[in-house]
């Protein structure tokens, strides 16, 4: 039985995604338990820089499919490219980071291999050569330990900030194997280009952020959040539902589909703390969370927590902020 672990090395065309060293570290741990080794799969129009970065990873092999037609990500081209690596490597396990890209590639490949797939995992373990994962359920209120049934390969996507260590530096550079790209006979998806969302303001520059979530209840209640932010000299940001509802512009959104911020102070008001939001703010120096639910997941990342109703508590906080001398006040944008 093969015991290789294939790692999909996700990149943006120029650089590997940040968490790839952690994915490699996890991959090596699992490969060791299986008595195998890791192969990094690199698909795209791979330039020198990207290849050099991949060669610094602690993988035994790097398998590359490089072609000018793969310059831009497009699932219908990337999927067969990765499939050709998969066919040759016949791994026991294929690991992806849980991402927009793996949400397309992983199920497509798993289906074609008639293979088990579990996504959004926090942990992968080998138990008597069986694979088990830990993953969240029900808005992350509970976790499940899930075993994969049936024949390998097993497909697993790992949540981005799952608690893995960064891989150590490698002592022996990986072997590089190149594969020829065979485009599919019929292409039904055409990319018209990747752009960045235009924005008039960059909340990632703010030193203090007051972030509002669905717990604010009504649009008219936003006023009390803005007043609090103004009293602190802080910038107003939000979770996704607030931007989805059109209550604040999308450029104020914090999280994987919005902005990653790292202010000195982040005050989360009525935000449940799901991973997609937390990924965008967890490195803030001081995190204070206000939530009416004592079980809210945000209390797992916050430094201080208050169980309170926003509508009654925020005005008290605003009054206290107005009384206190604020050195930073007035230096930042004040309103949403």
């Amino acid at each position, binding site marked *: 039985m093969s015991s290789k672990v294939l790692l999909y090395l996700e990149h943006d065309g120029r650089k590997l995604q940040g968490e790839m060293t952690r994915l490699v570290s996890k991959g090596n741990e699992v490969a060791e338990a299986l008595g195998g080794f890791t192969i990094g799969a690199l698909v795209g129009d791979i330039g020198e820089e990207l290849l050099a970065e991949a060669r610094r990873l602690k993988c035994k092999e790097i398998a590359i499919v490089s072609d000018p037609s793969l310059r831009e990500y497009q699932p219908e081209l990337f999927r067969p490219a990765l499939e050709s690596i998969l066919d040759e490597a016949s791994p026991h396990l294929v690991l992806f980071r849980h991402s927009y890209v793996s949400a397309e590639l992983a199920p497509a490949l798993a289906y074609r291999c008639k293979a088990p797939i579990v996504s959004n995992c926090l942990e992968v373990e080998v138990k008597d050569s069986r694979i088990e994962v830990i993953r969240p359920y*029900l808005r992350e209120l509970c976790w499940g330990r899930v075993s994969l049934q049936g024949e390998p390969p097993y497909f697993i996507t790992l949540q981005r900030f799952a608690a893995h260590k960064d891989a150590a530096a490698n002592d022996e550079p990986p072997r590089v194997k190149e594969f020829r790209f065979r485009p599919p006979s019929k292409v039904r998806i055409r990319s018209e280009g990747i*752009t960045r969302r235009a924005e008039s303001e960059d909340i990632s520059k703010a030193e203090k952020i007051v972030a509002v979530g669905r717990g604010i209840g009504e649009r008219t209640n936003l006023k009390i959040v803005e007043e609090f932010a103004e009293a602190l000299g802080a910038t107003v940001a939000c979770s996704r539902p607030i931007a989805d509802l059109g209550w604040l512009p999308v450029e104020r959104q914090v999280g994987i589909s919005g902005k990653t911020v790292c202010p000195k102070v982040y005050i989360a008001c009525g935000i449940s703390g799901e991973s997609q939001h937390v990924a965008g703010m967890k490195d803030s120096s001081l995190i204070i969370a206000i939530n009416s639910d004592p079980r809210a997941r945000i209390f797992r990342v916050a*430094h201080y927590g208050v169980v309170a109703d926003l509508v009654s508590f925020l005005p008290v906080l605003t009054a206290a902020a107005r009384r206190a001398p604020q050195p930073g006040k007035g230096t930042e944008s004040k309103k949403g």
Partner: protein
Amino acid sequence: MHLAVCCKGIPEEAGNFSFSTDGNHLSFDTASVILNESDEYALDEAIRWKKRIGAKVTALTLGGLESQEILYLALAKGADEALRIDSSAGSPWEVATLLGKAVERKEADLVLVGVQSADHMASLVGGLVAESLRRPFIFAVTSIEIIADRGTVIVQRELGEGRLQRLEVQLPSVLAVQTGICPLTYAPPARRLRARQKALEVLDPEQLGFPAEILGRYRKERIEEIMAPMVPQSAAMLQGSPQEVAAFIVERIREAS
């Protein structure tokens, strides 16, 4: 143009909530089932296309009798037809296999699913449905333009960190719709009541060609255990009068900034 929307009923998170598992599903002791958020956006987007180009909209769900509520809501919002697959299948592989068959039977040109269900949190069903039908699939779609005479859709989709991609995708295809794609509509109680008069189609897995022993082969995972998250609460919880707590917080903010 025929649009099928996969609508999942999820347990409403209310009161003291407990969960258990029999290996195949999660059970929640909850009274009511609500429509999963991103599926609701997918449904409303489909109904917008019904209004714009006269597309037909079929709402699909998979679950027990309680999930029929979701279909009544879909009909009240404007769906033309509704189909429930009467099954307790829980894993994405099984669910997608059955939904794929239903889509095939309905001959839908465009299938919309939500990006993620709040209970299973896997974001897998759309991709598996698409592959089971060998159709193109795009995840996290934030806008849809159906070009009926060209037989394509032009979509914008998220790639994360503020990156957006525009793609032209041939029909038939499957799209996973991101929240916020359109304004949500509200179905008033009177319309919801009227929707209950409409007929729903119900099919069991066997009628879709998957008797239990065959469907069982599509189950590729087992939930061994359900547990509380093993993350310690990091926050020091502040107690005291609101004024005391507020003064404490303001002081910490001042120190930190």
